């Protein structure tokens, strides 16, 4: 019994992790739900081997199940339920705003990257120019463009 439950938890964790790594928000959401189910199952397992249910006035001492993990899991389920519904609302809002289910990239991150690659392309072009025209011209080019060009990156218009 316990092995089956443990294997189920493992499968839930595996599927949850796989879905989390997708780009579609709905899949990420399902992945999160699976992940927390796996965690809840694990806590239930922490109660130990199957035994009698814990009710006041019933059962004998020593044959009762530890009720604490079940209290944990109940609390955790309520929390996960609330947060998942909030996330669903957020996903719906995101879909309304972008018309797409994909997770968007961070604009500023892209800007930093383009600024770097723009500077690198410039350096490459200068090296190529140096090979063709000789050192004087290349030096001249770099003094002209080296300082100002990285600021005029393609993504600049996005921000404005």
């Amino acid at each position, binding site marked *: 019994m316990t092995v089956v439950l443990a294997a189920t938890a493992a499968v839930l964790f595996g599927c949850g992790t796989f879905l989390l790594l997708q780009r579609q928000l709905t899949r990420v959401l399902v992945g999160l739900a699976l*992940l*927390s189910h*796996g965690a809840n199952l694990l806590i239930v397992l922490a109660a130990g081997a199957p035994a009698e249910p814990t009710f006041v006035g019933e059962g004998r001492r020593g044959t009762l199940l530890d009720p604490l993990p079940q209290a944990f899991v109940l609390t*955790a389920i309520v929390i996960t339920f609330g*947060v998942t519904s909030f*996330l669903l609302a957020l996903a719906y809002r995101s879909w309304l705003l972008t018309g797409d289910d994909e*997770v*968007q990239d*961070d604009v500023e991150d892209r800007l930093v990257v383009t600024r770097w690659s723009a500077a690198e392309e410039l350096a490459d072009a200068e090296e190529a120019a140096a090979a063709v025209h000789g050192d004087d011209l290349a030096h001249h080019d770099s003094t002209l463009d080296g300082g100002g060009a990285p600021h005029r990156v393609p993504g600049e218009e996005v921000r404005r």
Partner: protein
Amino acid sequence: MSALLALPITLPLGAAAVSIVVGRWRTAQRVIGVATLSALVVVSIVLLVRVDRDGAVASQAGGWEAPFGITLVADRLAAVMLVVSLLMLLAVLLYAIGQGEAELAHVGFHPVYLVLAAGVSATFLTGDLFNLFVSFEVMLTASYVLITLGGRRDQVRAGMTYVVISLVASALFLTTLGFVYASAGTVNLADLAGRFTDLPVGVRQALALLLLVVFGIKAAVFPLFFWLPDSYPTAPTAVTAVFAGLLTKVGVYAIIRTQTILLPADDRPATLLLAIAGATMVVGVLGAIAQNDIKRILSFHIVSQIGYMIMGLGFFTVAGVAGAVLYVVHHIIVKTTLFLTGGLVEHRAGTGHLDRLGGLVRTAPVVAVLFLLPALSLAGIPPLSGFVAKFALVDAGLADGWWLVVAASLLVSVLTLFSMTKIWAGAFWGAREPSPGGRPLPALMLAPTAALTALSLGVALFAGPLYALSERAATDLLDGETYVQAVLGE
């Protein structure tokens, strides 16, 4: 005494409920919010004084005995964190009322803000791991709402990243709780402290590592920090400021708490923590240098500064942990102030982009001063609070011969100063005319920022007594005996 422990949690929750009911009257919401937080500041200061005088205090909610019931406990570290956090929450609420951006956006702002206060307080005061999880969730759920309150496109995008990362961390936390309960049979921290020593070394270290990862995500340490600079800057200034000051530091608090009380002295992950600390400091500050927006530069600095706190903990000496506690106090105040000042700049000039800012030192000299003091303090220029805190850390590190990480921390200080001068040169110097989007600054935005700047100067001025207090807190933490006695009452 038990009422004092419960008030920081119950009072804001009750006030939040009232605040929802009176949602139509903005003034009533404002009065409730400010009055509640002011009262809590007083309560937390009383608590700190009494805890510092008499030692740690605990109370069992509902009258159940210690390992089974819900334990609330305040030792010196928790009380110090509580005082500083509530002060920040109060100052930022006043700022938000002055600014109006986040506060006017939605009737839900005040209630959710109070719930956030309750969550932060509960995190500091709780005495068991499961309630730590619940407190984290209360705090995080409030923060999810605050970060996406405007409902703008970039906010939803950034909020999504933040919520998903936090949820993954929560699922991992739950998993860890399952493991802890399965192996030790309790989640009460004081009870765990005794039972952890009986566990096999491998199990103990695996559990400690899992807890480190869980809280490392919340505290944004290397390599788990990527979500932070992405999600923080899009929120309204007041929200970002309170997140920057408090939320990651709550993670740091949890790391300090669990890595000290749960592990016996010879089994603490010193080298691992110091390696993480060094990487966090260096990567964070390099990220800050690459950025071009005030809030984003400051967000990367949060990551960098977390490294200092972890470094202090990683020494695992009284001097080191005392330095870390002092650093956390300094950092919460200074970081919140810097974000508030960043908000002042954006409000005044209409943008936070360094490319389009300039000349503020002439058009808004007060803002320039309010930026310069905390910025220099963050970089560790004497005689400001950052210098005192960094000196304590470096001194502790050299005493134990951790040369490499100390050298890294000093290098990072220089780079911090460099990126602060980048903001200074971009925003305050130069000849740019103010852009048309700018507005004059309300006094209610300036006053809290100035008060926090004064508070950070106060930290430097009263560094002696504060360091002595941090030292007492560190002694308690590394020993763990007073905490266990207060909770289990043996």
